[in-house]
């Protein structure tokens, strides 16, 4: 019953290969157009005006090629998922995740990415050692690890080891402690 409910909930998210290809092609068209606009309006310096190749020569060419290619991707009928093809027999196409989303743990995948963003934002304030240890501990917890007596020391030791190798051995500076300590 519970499984059925979750399948029904995920139904609108079932994306066909055709629709995702169209959306991606549309995204490329928008990106190429934006890039082309920036290339066309790029302010060329006075002494660059008479150069055989200007700073925006190649970008304009790339933008035009990008627009042509994305329009072709929009118009040309694409084969349906290649996931069933011979090529992907062993490893499988990643499109399979969209074909049956209820079989996979989307929360964990998305949670991991959100945790990575938090880690990136906290590095400056909290310093390398604390933010990395917290990231590794919460990452493990999110994926189902419950043996704290292993997880916590392993995470702290790994953060320290990487910091020691980079900062102390290779002498590439990496601030270990929170910003507040240095103020």
């Amino acid at each position, binding site marked *: 019953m519970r499984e059925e409910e979750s399948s029904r909930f995920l139904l609108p998210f079932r994306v066909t290969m055709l629709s995702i290809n169209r959306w991606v092609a549309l995204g490329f068209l928008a990106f190429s157009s934006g890039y082309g606009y920036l290339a066309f309006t790029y302010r060329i310096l006075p002494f660059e005006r008479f150069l055989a190749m200007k700073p925006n020569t190649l970008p304009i060419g790339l933008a035009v090629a990008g627009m042509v290619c994305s329009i072709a991707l929009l118009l040309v009928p694409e084969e349906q998922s290649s996931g069933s093809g011979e090529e992907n027999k062993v490893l499988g196409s990643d499109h399979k995740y*969209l074909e049956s989303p209820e079989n996979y743990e989307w929360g964990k*995948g998305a949670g991991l990415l959100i945790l990575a963003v938090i880690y990136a934002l906290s590095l400056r304030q909290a310093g390398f050692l604390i933010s990395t240890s917290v990231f590794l501990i919460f990452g493990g917890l999110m994926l189902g690890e419950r043996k704290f007596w292993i997880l916590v020391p392993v995470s702290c030791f790994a953060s320290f080891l990487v910091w020691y190798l980079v900062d102390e051995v290779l002498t590439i500076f990496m601030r270990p402690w929170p910003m507040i300590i240095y103020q």
Partner: protein
Amino acid sequence: MWDQMLLGIQTAFTLQNMFFAALGCFIGTIIGMLPGLGPMSVVAIMIPVSIQIGDPSTTLILLAGVYYGAIFGGSTSSILINAPGEAAVVATSFDGYPMARKGQAGKALTIAAISSFSGGTIGAILLMGFAPVLASFAILFWSAEYFALMLVGLSAVAAFAGKGKVLKALMMTLLGLMLSTVGESSLFNAPRFTLGLLDLQSGIHFVTLAMGLFAVPEAFFLALDVLRGQKGGSKEARDISNLRINLKEAKTIAPVIGRQSIQGFLIGVMPGAGATIASFLGYAVERNLANPEERKEFGQGSIKGLAAPETANNAASTGSFVPLLTLGIPGSGTTAILLGAFIALNLQPGPLLMQDRPEVFWSVIFSMYFGNIILLILNLPLVPYIARLLAIPRTYLIPFVLFFAMAGAYIGQNNATELLLLIGFGVFAIIMRFADYPLPPLLIGFVLGQIFEDNFGRAIRNANGIQFLWERPMTLALVLATLAFVMIPLYRDWRSRRKASSLG
């Protein structure tokens, strides 16, 4: 000459120099495994330490060992966790990582070690025999030829355009080329497409893009799918620490190693081309030469697809010593740093080095043989242990893969914006993988884009037009080779479609 070579052998094979060659290989392998610390950074870090030794031959032998070790170390993270920390090992992950996912990590690492050894050793033999001749050939390469060579490199994307994916591969290459134009360029005076962001002033960094495109999606999919990485292959084949290669496999990769050692070396000899383009081209050439059955395996864990770039990048790394030792011109970023080490040691690489300091010249070359043997001896017994890293429980492995990728972009830059950019690229790559777009062409476009534009610009300025494309014979030959690289897969695709439709 034989006296000089003998002097080189005597210098290279002293106990002290053999120890430092082994130490260099070991340090390089360990540090090179960290994404973000490619051979260039590792050699640069080691220069101040190695100069303390005092003896120029020993210092250069140590640095050459570090260089080879770092290249091999980079391929380990490429194969095991799909995190290529350096452009030259990107192509290694195309088939190396699928092999690891099929449970053949040990075999993949062994093939990588043997290919690296063979490429490096054959490269050293060629270096010894043909260095002076090749040096004079290398300087015939002007901007026009480099531009054409980049075109050949870009044509490698055709190798990733599977059935019905030609347009997708082309779109990704264009996107890579567009991203390569962001920031400052050596050809122009102001940064481009930075959207006013200071962080983009120096452009998008390779490690940020590579980790975002390859490692982040992998961590995401591993978290998403509990069974990922536990499928495919027989039970014996799935023994991750098994490093045995059977006779049939050895026979399959032998011609690949032979061809790619020579091709990679010749590409490495040309200043500016280097190991990256050698590995991409090696992969593309082998895919085109493979029979239809073998071609289907490329990108899915083909041993040929792994051996080709691994051999080529090591042979090219050896080849890049030719212009450095004989002309004093650094052929790659790493050899540019090594040139700094030469100068710091009061040595002037160039035509006179062989005459003035034969013991240094020849001992560096002979230490390459020794270094490659050490790398093999050092790495083969370690393969089962390194491969077992994949047996770490996923609750630890996944956060560590993500951390490893992010640390690569953070080390040396201390810039959190770089990490946000990395995650952004990661999300983009996830969407692209859902839509079945090939990601390697994007990275190839990005890596070759900057060199492509610089050389195109210079060639146009020199010739005041594009007539160099047909007026310079070598440029014309390379352009024709590019056309062949693009047309052959298109023709094969068309022929198979026609066959299918006539059967249907």
